[in-house]
């Protein structure tokens, strides 16, 4: 099953993105807690993308795709044409530094890496594709 959502880069749209993910993931036998973790990871990725790659310009759009198949991991793809902000290249500050330097951004990346099994970046034509995979029991 494939679900698609296209949205502008305004932080106001994060609520709609979370609702789309919740609606897509329910009815597949995935636990509430696992759904809430995936919603959180995607919210962090989308807000990062809006802020760092699109300066929160509501006229710049990106796509979110979710593929859910029985006995397979859930795959999320974030597709856009902005600059790439690769979280795998980002060195995580220690929690201590996060407090003292108030580098709030590092928290979100830590959450995504803790929740998702993999985060990979690729290209298709002039589009960037960020692919996030989460292994969960899908019925």
């Amino acid at each position, binding site marked *: 099953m494939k679900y698609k959502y296209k949205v502008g880069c*305004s*932080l*106001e749209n*994060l*609520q709609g993105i*979370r609702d789309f993910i919740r609606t897509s993931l329910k009815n597949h036998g995935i636990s*509430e*807690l696992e759904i*809430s*973790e995936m*919603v*959180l990871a995607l*919210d*962090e990725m989308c*807000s990062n993308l*809006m*802020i760092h790659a699109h300066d929160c310009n509501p006229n710049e759009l990106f796509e979110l795709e979710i593929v859910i198949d029985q006995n397979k991991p859930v795959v999320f793809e974030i597709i856009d044409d902005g600059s790439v902000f690769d979280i795998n290249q980002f060195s995580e500050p220690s*929690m201590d530094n*996060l*407090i*003292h330097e*108030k580098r*709030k*951004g590092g*928290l*979100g990346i*830590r*959450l995504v890496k*803790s*929740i998702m099994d993999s985060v990979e970046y690729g290209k298709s034509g002039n589009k960037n594709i960020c692919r996030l995979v989460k292994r969960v029991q899908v019925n």
Partner: protein
Amino acid sequence: MVHIKRLQEDGIDIIAPVGEIDASSSIELDLTIAKSVGEGFAKILVDCGALEYISSAGLGVFMSYIDEFKDKNVKMVLFGMSEKVANTFEILGLYDLLTIAPDKAEAKKKVNEV
């Protein structure tokens, strides 16, 4: 979308966010805490009973006050989190950095500890 209620009990300021705190709404939480401190409250409870969701932007707000609260001797205790919200704090190990209580009675006890 978040709506933040405030009420005072026995000299304690109780901040109650209702709804979801994300990158677009975390500023509301920041402003409310800043206001409470500005008004001179040294004991702050955050009632998370109606907090349905929090992302790193909201967690970052709580963390940004840790140093300031130490300097000013302000105590902040969070309580009443749902399992999902508590899980977000747990993933980041924030239980070691923030004071979190299961319910209001425990939270009051903790905020009144010397």
